[in-house]
């Protein structure tokens, strides 16, 4: 088995799916000749040709809107948006059309397509290159939102996303892109959409996270171990639909929960997760659920980004607060 980073793992997943299914098509800005600004689509155009790996005009709404047309008429488009910060022009197509085609046509048409986009902070980038607005996406009915945190899961999830009968927004934590390498098998395997994963088992407290924050949460879990606290860490992997069962099972066991996300706090996914816990496991709670998140401000330029992003120390503080309640 080959050790791969997340960029290479997604690239591999795309390549294998394109080999398997001739209707899979990659389109976006700089995805062809350049191989994507993060090299996720590197080598695909030379392998599959410019008809299947297409450099488009610079127009997010255009890319996503035409992908709908391609999807309803025989193709499996995998569109790339260069950064989540440039998603907003395409939100109109996603909210007004892509998410609604199945409903609008009463099942006559569907929109099986994938929109890939790097997201999140921590790479010293300019404005609009660090945002995480996954909660905005999860708020749209008819759309699935997937966020892998490891190379292995990234490959398995991109394959599942491509095979899914509905539109999937695939958010790639760019801080993780080259940060870790792990065994990523060649050949077919999938990671199911909608299934979270317990990445560290523990009995005392549940830490729920996704994307680049999973590693920070694991780090904090190791730190708090020295204080005799055994934390369970859940990687959601899919943020819409949420895997209530994995969350609730863990919370029933530990009775204490911290949710970690780098996105803005207010109306972030943490709020939805708390609501689900309240609905399904409130009697198991021994303390209020704590959120360790970004702040309700614009993501700062890089001199201050380390203050904005939840750090293991901030997560540790959240864990201690819940444990001390």
């Amino acid at each position: 088995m080959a050790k791969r980073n997340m960029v290479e793992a997604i690239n591999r997943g795309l390549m294998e799916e394109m080999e398997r299914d001739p209707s899979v098509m990659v389109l976006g800005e700089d995805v062809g000749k350049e191989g994507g600004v993060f090299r996720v689509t590197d080598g695909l155009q030379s392998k599959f040709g410019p008809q299947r790996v297409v450099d488009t005009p610079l127009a997010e709404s255009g890319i996503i809107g035409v992908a709908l047309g391609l999807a309803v008429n025989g193709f499996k488009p995998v569109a790339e948006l260069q950064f989540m910060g440039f998603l907003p022009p395409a939100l109109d197509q996603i909210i007004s059309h892509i998410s609604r085609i199945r409903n609008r046509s009463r099942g006559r048409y569907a929109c099986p397509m994938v929109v890939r986009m790097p997201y999140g902070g921590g790479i010293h980038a300019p404005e609009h290159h660090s945002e995480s607005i996954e909660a905005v996406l999860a708020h749209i009915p008819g759309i699935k939102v997937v966020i892998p945190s490891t190379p292995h899961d990234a490959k398995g999830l991109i394959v599942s996303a491509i095979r899914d009968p509905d539109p999937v927004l695939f958010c790639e934590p760019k801080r993780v892109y080259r940060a870790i390498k792990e065994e990523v098998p060649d050949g077919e395997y999938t990671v199911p959409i909608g299934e979270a994963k317990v990445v560290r088992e523990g009995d005392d407290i549940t830490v729920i996270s996704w994307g680049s924050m999973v590693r920070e949460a694991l780090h904090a879990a190791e730190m708090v171990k020295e204080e005799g606290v055994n934390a369970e860490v859940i990687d959601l992997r899919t943020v819409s639909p949420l895997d209530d069962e994995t969350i609730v099972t863990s919370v029933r066991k530990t009775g204490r929960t911290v949710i970690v996300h780098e996105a803005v706090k207010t109306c972030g996914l943490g709020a939805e997760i708390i609501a689900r816990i309240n609905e399904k496991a409130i009697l198991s709670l021994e303390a209020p659920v704590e959120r360790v998140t970004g702040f309700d401000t614009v993501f700062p330029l890089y001199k201050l980004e380390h203050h904005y992003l939840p750090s293991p120390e901030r997560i540790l503080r959240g864990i201690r607060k819940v444990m001390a309640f």
Partner: protein
Amino acid sequence: MIEKFDPLKGKMLRILGPDGRCDEKLKPDLSDDTVQTLYRHMVFIRQADQRALSLQRQGRMGTYAPVQGQEAAQVGSAYALGENDWIFPSFRETGACYMRGVPLRDIYLYWMGDERGQRVPEDVHVFPASIPVGSHPLHAVGAAWAAKLQVQGICTLVYFGDGGTSEGDFHEAMNFAGVFQTPTIFFCQNNQYAISVPRKIQTAAKTLAQKAIAYGFGGVQVDGNDLFAVYAATKDAREKAVSGGGPTMIEAVTYRFGPHTTADDPAKYRSDEELEEWRPLDPLLRLQKYLQGKKLWSEDWEAQIKDEAEKSITQAVQEAEGIPEPQPEEFFHYAFAEMTPNLKEQMNDFLAFLKEKGE
């Protein structure tokens, strides 16, 4: 004058040829002194740009979008504006921003990951850089509309690139400008590439300038590496704008010698041959040849202005790096005029965390 250069007929305004020879009939009214000064600015901007690249390589600056090759387009257009006109830059406008009065220190500070670099001095009308491509022409149209309604007698000029003309917002901006006859100059620097994607993939149209025609106003293609052509076209467009004649689109045909930003390698998407074809069209080289022909240039003078530029650039770097780090909670203060109770709570909790950590 610019209406004589119909983009649909393949006409492009060029006054100063690559050999430095000038079409005297079209040459704008600029004194020798002024031309020398503008050349000096172009030299300065090129060196300031190179310094930014080296700072980035040394880890003293973040991602930077270089401007090399586009100095004539930016200097010529910025200089043609009136004192109170506004510019709306995208992210590759080091030259234009500097020309309009943004201190180089602040330009550097911004690329060093510090928002304070985007707070321009009170008497400067330069909007903060807009990074989402093609989104800000609308803002320039709105501000021009406001200027028209208040009879301010000014215009706005928006900088964008060839890639920007593919965005929906660009077209909406052009349409609004035409409908409301706003005093707006759409200044497109067609530098041939949107990152790796060549201009031919942005539009099937022969020129970008001709897009203006569909919106009911004039568009002109100029040699963007020709300072005189850029200046003359912008001045014309400005006079039209402030005298109630409405908007104009200028397509400055130029070439980005460097990468899109410090994060990409142009060798991956364009050939050395192509780069070499553009080298002789370098805007600095051309103006230098012109000045030589007029006996307005010498090696000593060139060395002197380069030396002066280096000193002043070094000072700007020192000033930018000498500014104390922002307070950790700085970004909380610009969400609203008055901080909301919940945001205050978040900030106080953050400050308490820092205190616990001993920061």
